[in-house]
């Protein structure tokens, strides 16, 4: 089947994206100061605390801003939007006491903020600038004084081919020219910077790795959980943890290290990327987390499928079309891009063909039609690529269209799109892009480079084509990205993915299912499904689709609990998935008041930030005077209680298909493919065995005669 054979080029995508790994940072997170001579504030301290458990991460960023100047000032801190992050808390210390924010409509929140500021009262606001940045504004930072704020967000932490990845984004992508022209970012933490990650799981994790922070202190607790610590002040790893010895459980970069950058200031210009590798023998499985505080109330669940499917390697030749961004924001990345394309082309088979398309304000083809992937043509193409400069805007639509039009309908084709920017020239509507990729049976493999790329555009478009999108940070491990991309490229995939979840009896009802619109499940990919339920009891989960044209189906049966209270954060994760769904609708419709209102309502009900809402802090008495409901404060208290309870015990098992595993095949891994082997004698073996039996009986008769 044609659509099933296109994966090899993900490798190219992975390579091309991994290209970015060596590119210099353009801009960084930090305190924003207008470029008009306004004196800058001092970013004194920043403490980042991350707990990864149960398939999601809770990230808390606490920081202090100081004002060394002679007049009161407003602090604006901006940092890139982390991937799929649901901001759940914004807290501002007023009179030494933490006051948590509530979610309001964006315009209303801004109006109140300005009013409070004008009245000289303490206030703070957290806003989302589209898909690009979170901006936190605090008033006032008194002359010669400091303020403290905290932001917390929750994000899913999925595995791919047994490798987990967490990114604390700090590098700004440099794609917002207006912002860059007006503001300058103070990215230096002058006091203490610390980053602590606690990885809690009942599955065995063999190693952790921070490719861009080799001096991070990594340790393993006696209960099997792992900790990462980065600090610019001399400090030992946390008590209760033991340094990782140079043994089989630690990889070459996961050994105990002394904390880095002792006593120095810390620059917020490098993403902190943490990888963890699950033990090879951890099985393919189904995990479920549920939150249902009352037996007669509504529950929320998160199902995570880690499939083990018999996906065979792909060997036949195909066409690859590289569509590469050469807009101005790619400036520091072109040499890396060239290297990535070079390595990608080097992976092609002699039977494969390729062509290369570039775009900035307009698009043009670098090659002249398809070229066979032989040494001579690859060398020629690379010479052309090396001579391309980055400049101009981003006409992504034209680039993509030219690439898609170049596809040969009679051959299996894949399109590798590498971009770090926004579509700001030509057609820019998401619906136009979706229509474009629907026109042709060409799968997209998209390398989303940097923290400010237009994920809301690139991801749905890639999924619509049945392809695979990878986000890449400058701090990513080039080899890690390569390995993950390779897994998508070299093997078959499950196409026409269908996931059904049905109650087995009358005591359980399930609704509001939300999942990423995955049509094709690639080797090593996980699937996450959120939903609501009432009652309790068994449900049947069925994953079905086709592998190389043959229908396959995997089933599991497990129970939904009557009550569960350890993971209240699931409600926010469900709400975030719902908001993502509504925003996609909005992209398709252009503008729709009902959909927008739905986003606002969900955002307010569940206390998460959205493009249409903000988190506002005013003095406690002002919340009362303004009749602002404190629902988020109450929700945070519930979450804090649950978190303390979770941390008091080892991470519990979340697997629900232990008794009757959903997948017979092992979970794929990078080393050897996580292979399982069977002793299957098969029909030929049986025929031969019967032949041997007949021969033996004949011999026996002959001898006994």
């Amino acid at each position, binding site marked *: 089947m044609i659509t099933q054979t296109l994966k090899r080029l993900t490798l190219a995508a992975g390579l091309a994206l991994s290209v970015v790994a060596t590119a210099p940072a353009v801009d960084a997170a930090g305190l924003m100061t207008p470029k008009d001579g306004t004196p800058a504030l001092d970013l004194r301290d920043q403490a980042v605390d991350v707990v990864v458990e149960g398939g999601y991460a809770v990230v808390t960023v606490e920081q202090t801003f100081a004002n060394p100047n002679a007049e009161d000032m407003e602090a604006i801190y901006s940092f890139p939007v982390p991937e799929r992050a649901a901001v759940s808390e914004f807290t501002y210390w007023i009179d030494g006491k933490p006051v948590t924010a509530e979610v309001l409509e964006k315009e209303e929140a801004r109006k109140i903020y300005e009013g409070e500021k004008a009245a000289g009262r303490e206030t703070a606001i957290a806003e989302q600038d589209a898909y690009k940045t979170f901006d936190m504004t605090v008033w006032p930072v008194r002359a010669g004084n400091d303020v403290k704020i905290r932001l917390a967000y929750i994000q899913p932490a999925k595995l791919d081919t047994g490798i987990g990845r967490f990114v604390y984004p700090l590098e700004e992508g440099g794609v917002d020219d207006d912002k860059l022209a007006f503001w300058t970012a103070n990215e230096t933490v002058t006091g203490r910077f610390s980053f602590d990650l606690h990885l809690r799981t009942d599955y065995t994790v063999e190693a952790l790795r921070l490719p861009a922070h080799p001096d991070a202190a990594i340790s393993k607790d006696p209960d099997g959980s792992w900790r990462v610590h980065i600090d610019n002040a001399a400090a030992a790893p946390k008590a209760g943890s033991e340094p990782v010895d140079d043994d089989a459980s630690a990889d070459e970069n996961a050994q105990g290290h002394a904390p880095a950058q002792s006593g120095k200031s810390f620059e917020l210009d490098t993403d902190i990327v943490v990888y963890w590798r699950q033990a090879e023998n951890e099985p393919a499985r189904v995990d479920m987390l549920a939150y249902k505080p009352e037996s007669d109330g509504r529950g929320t669940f998160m199902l995570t499928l880690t499939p083990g499917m018999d996906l065979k390697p792909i060997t036949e030749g195909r066409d690859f079309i590289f569509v590469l961004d050469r807009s101005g924001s790619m400036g520091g990345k072109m040499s890396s891009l060239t290297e990535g394309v070079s390595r990608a082309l080097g992976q092609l088979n002699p039977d494969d063909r390729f062509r290369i398309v570039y775009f900035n304000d307009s698009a043009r083809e670098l090659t002249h039609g398809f070229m066979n992937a032989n040494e001579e043509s690859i060398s020629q193409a690379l010479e052309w690529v090396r001579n391309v400069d980055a400049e101009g805007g981003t006409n992504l639509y034209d680039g993509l269209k030219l690439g898609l039009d170049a596809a040969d309908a009679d051959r299996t084709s894949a399109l590798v799109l590498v971009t770090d920017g926004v579509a700001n020239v030509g057609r820019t509507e998401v619906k136009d892009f979706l229509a474009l990729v629907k026109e042709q049976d060409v799968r997209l493999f998209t390398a989303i480079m940097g923290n400010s790329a237009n994920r809301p555009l690139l991801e749905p478009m890639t999924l619509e084509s049945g392809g695979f999108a990878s986000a890449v940070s400058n701090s990513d491990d080039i080899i890690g990205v390569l390995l993950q991309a390779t897994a998508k490229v070299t093997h078959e995939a499950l196409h026409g993915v269908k996931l059904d979840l049905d109650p087995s009896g009358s005591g359980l009802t399930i609704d509001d299912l939300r999942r990423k619109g995955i049509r094709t499940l690639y080797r090593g990919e996980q699937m996450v499904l959120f939903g609501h339920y009432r009652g309790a009891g068994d449900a049947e989960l069925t994953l079905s689709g086709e592998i190389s044209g043959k229908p396959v189906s995997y089933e599991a049966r497990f129970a939904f609990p009557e009550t569960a209270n350890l993971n209240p954060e699931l409600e926010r994760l469900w709400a975030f998935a719902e908001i993502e769904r509504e925003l996609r609708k909005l992209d398709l419709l252009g503008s729709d008041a009902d959909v927008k209102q739905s986003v606002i309502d969900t955002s307010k009900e569940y206390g998460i930030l959205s493009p249409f809402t903000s988190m506002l802090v005013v003095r406690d008495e002002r919340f009362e005077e303004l009749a602002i409901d404190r629902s988020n404060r109450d929700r945070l208290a519930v979450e804090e209680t649950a978190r303390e309870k979770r941390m008091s015990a080892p991470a519990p098992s979340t697997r629900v298909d232990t008794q009757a*595993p959903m997948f017979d095949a092992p979970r794929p891994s990078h080393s050897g493919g*996580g*292979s399982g*082997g*069977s*002793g299957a004698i098969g029909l030929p073996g049986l025929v031969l065995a019967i032949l041997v039996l007949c021969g033996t009986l004949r011999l026996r008769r002959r001898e*006994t005669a």
Partner: protein
Amino acid sequence: MHAPANAFHGRPRLPWFTPGLAALTAALYALAGGTPSSLVYDRAAIEAGEVWRLVTGHLVHLDLHHLGYNLGALLALGTAYELAPFGGPRRLALHIFGFGGLAVTATLLAVFPDTLRYCGLSAVLNTLYAALTLGLWRETREKIWLVALAASIAKIAWEAAFGPIFSAGLAWPPHLGAHVAGLLAGCLVALSRPSQISDEDPESLSQPVSANA
């Protein structure tokens, strides 16, 4: 062609090991189902001390399809070996399942570190098959048994090149390395026993062979 030695003196023996092992294998499937996680060959678990998997891995199966073919082959080959003049139940237990099983798991551990899991009887059935075909050839000098052995080698080679012939659909593909290891172990078993027919001494054909020698 040489005439075979008369190996069957006294009361004819009846196969008992083979039906017993078949019953055990079927019972394991009935009780533990397909791919029981605590019984399959699991490299990491074995390294962690769960050494019973070295044995039980051969006795458990993925599904009924897998079990059915292997049980059929076990009943045919095991019965043949128990009745063969050079075989018998003790040889079957010790040489084939003991030595053969050990050789297969040792090969998996030493040569195939990427094989994390394995289950099924067929690698040891390959030991049994090789020991039988080579043994029959040594007893009868009928070339058909060499052809039969070659057919098994050809089957493995085919599957290495083109994938499973008739066993497609199993969750785990046939482990060809284990099959080859089993086949070699069977050849060793067959060749380690003195032949009843000596090329140098045709008179040896008339010498009796004890049932379990």
